[in-house]
């Protein structure tokens, strides 16, 4: 029997959040944390969490498992459970709507702020725009982001300034477009980022790198943006 302690809060009935204990019979199998949640939801229909693809590509079920952010669907219990105990909490730093469901509004706002779309003011050719494999390789490790928010919600700089600091996820995407050989808005993008908060509030803590379920490296991308800003202004 796995001991699970889970954060519960229903705004209609609870004046404050609390931790609820569950016993889950995993039958000794090494299942995913999401499977554990399904079993708990059968015990308590009212338990709320997001989930969709259950294979780590949609980014719905980011949560805090035994203190570390990750995706429940690709985290086997053997990886997080210590001493037969699993503690599940919502992603830190965002308002809780109910149980493990957080309001991701601020996170999405920061994503939208970096203009996450290709900008090219030259007329499009009749076929595709050509891009060398080398230029395309520069997008690897950037475009794969699934917007699960595991990184940004583990970042102290984002906790303190979620309205001003773009956060690791948004900056990773910002660099994805800055470095795309097809994008022509580099200068405009950079000028939007040179203030003391948007990029520079990153203090290199690297929690983002430690938790990214896709193995991406936002800190590296942020460093590259800094280099571009420096090159652009000197």
């Amino acid at each position, binding site marked *: 029997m796995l001991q699970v302690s889970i954060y519960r809060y*229903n*705004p*209609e*009935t609870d004046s404050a959040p609390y931790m609820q204990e569950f016993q889950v019979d995993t039958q000794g199998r090494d299942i995913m944390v999401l499977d554990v949640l399904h079993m708990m*939801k*059968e015990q308590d*229909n*009212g338990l*709320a*969490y*997001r*989930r*969709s*693809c*259950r*294979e*780590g*590509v*949609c*980014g*719905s079920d980011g949560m805090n498992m035994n203190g570390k952010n990750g995706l429940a669907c*690709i985290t086997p219990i053997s990886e997080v459970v210590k001493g037969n105990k699993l503690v599940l909490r919502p992603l830190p730093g965002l308002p809780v*709507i*109910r*149980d493990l*469901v957080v309001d*991701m509004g601020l996170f*999405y706002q920061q994503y*939208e702020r970096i*203009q*996450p*779309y*290709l900008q*090219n003011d030259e007329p*499009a050719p*009749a*076929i*595709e*725009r*050509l*891009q*060398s*494999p080398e230029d*395309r390789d520069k*997008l*690897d490790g950037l*475009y*794969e982001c*699934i*917007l699960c928010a595991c990184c940004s919600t583990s970042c102290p700089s984002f906790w303190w300034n979620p309205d001003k600091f773009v956060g690791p996820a948004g900056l990773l995407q910002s660099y994805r*477009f800055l470095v*795309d050989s*097809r*994008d022509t808005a580099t200068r405009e993008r950079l000028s939007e980022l040179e203030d003391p908060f948007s990029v520079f509030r990153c203090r290199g803590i690297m929690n983002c790198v430690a938790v990214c379920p896709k193995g991406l490296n936002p800190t590296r991308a942020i460093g590259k943006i800094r280099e571009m800003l420096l090159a652009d202004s000197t």
Partner: protein
Amino acid sequence: MSNMRSLSFDAIIIGGGGAGLRAALELAKSGKKTAVLSKVFPTRSHTVSAQGGITCAIASADPNDDWRWHMYDTVKGGDYIADQDAAEYMCSEGPKAVFELEHMGLPFSRFDNGRIYQRPFGGQSKDFGAGGQAARTCAAADRTGHALLHTLYQNNLKNNTTFLNEWYAVDLVKNANGDVVGCIAMDIETGEVVHVKSKATVLATGGSGRIYASTTNALINTGDGVGMALRAGFPMQDMEMWQFHPTGIYGAGTLVTEGCRGEGGYLVNKDGERFMERYAPNAKDLAGRDVVARSMVMEILEGRGCGENGDHVYLKLDHLGEEVLGKRLPGIVELSKTFAHVDPAKEPIPVVPTCHYMMGGVPTNVHGQAIMRGEDGKDQIVNGLFACGEVACVSVHGANRLGGNSLLDLVVFGRAAGMFIEGALNEGIDYLDASESDIETAMKRITRWNESESGETVPELKRELQAIMQNSFGVFREEENMQKGVKQLAELRGRIDNAYLPDKSNAFNTARVEALELDNLMEVAEATAIAALERKESRGAHSRYDYPDRDDVNWLKHSLYFPADKTIGKRDVNFAPKTVDTFEPKVRTY
């Protein structure tokens, strides 16, 4: 009901996957008041899981490639019940739609000359089958769906599309004339139920793979669009046609792209034999998916399956080398390690045919307009209702979809629906408003759940439904077993109609959403079962032990399932493409 809030749009698009977002983009650009209503944040839609690519004759891998060859493959792959005017439209418009995606920023992989990378996929040929294997699937590594969905979402942000994210569409609203004039929807976060009025309602709700116990589909693929359309009385087409993907990871059901075999991987049985050489001597592992899936099941049934129980086969990739795997199939390496605990660079992946795609759905024309049968027995357009993507049956996939054609279907017909609706709105659309009682009709089922006081609960009933479908309507089908399945489903429907929702709270009540989804699963399952029982032949994905041959005399037809009396009718397949000669039905071999 009169105190219910209402929202008004020119067009409401239900579903935020590839098709919905492509349609929305077209309408947002035109300045029409459009909203995308999605039960998940759009990039969590199932399009994100598509891996291998988008098949399209952009003449990159082969400068002489021809969309007509792609069309031929598509029609043949669909075992000749794909509508040829629709396949023609998709394959000829495809390049435009793919180039648009590239211009929007989709990070396609590249050849050395800078053009889009294309890989071979199953069922692809050059020169109408005479020129050998083609490489026609445009790919962004093995994350094409992810790249495509994010690109479309990003461009919708650019064009200021309105999003109703985490809203759940409950049912369609019809006016007194039977026109669709919007829907009832619930804001999941607050539980508020709203009447969404719209001149055009687009179903882009995707597939319904969750009717099966084992599926590659996301947990959200519950056939909401099919359910809504059926409850509104509209027919469904070719619902017996379910694609079983040859390579779902054994035990987990997660998808392993056909691109693995396109890059040179192949299937082996327990003796290490590359058995597809026996079943499809020419195309081998790149035969149509239905052919490969059946061959795998034959191997397993004849005792040549792998593992302790001999119930799966192996997909061998280790000979490709770590570099190719890392560059072309990085996502597969990740998934195999997570879900099969094997490193494909060293060991083969255990795989088994797994429910993957619904070829059937809401019958539509190439403009996405939903079609029903008029009183004169002829096709009749449903005013106000559109469908595109997996929920629609245009039909380009016929009895079996080719790999890489689903993403093309999404963007081509999402775009087509958007363009058509824009034109129609410009000309003016004026339908009668829904009355109080029309709205109440659409509110019936959510009201029932909210007022339920006791009964069986949702998870148990869902499991039972999935078991019935898995046991009676799988890769191979047979009369007696299907009869049993249909009976079990009828009984199950009675129980679902009396099921109980214990949690009646409003804030982010996922239990209520799952209850509403169960109704839809039930609709899809029953339509599938009855259509499968009725089609007495084997064609494409529909394989019957008792009718092992294709019957072109009686069944070179679409099936139409009518929900009112649960009967099956037939509808003519289109054999009249506009610019090419008809592809006459031939024996289908690979």
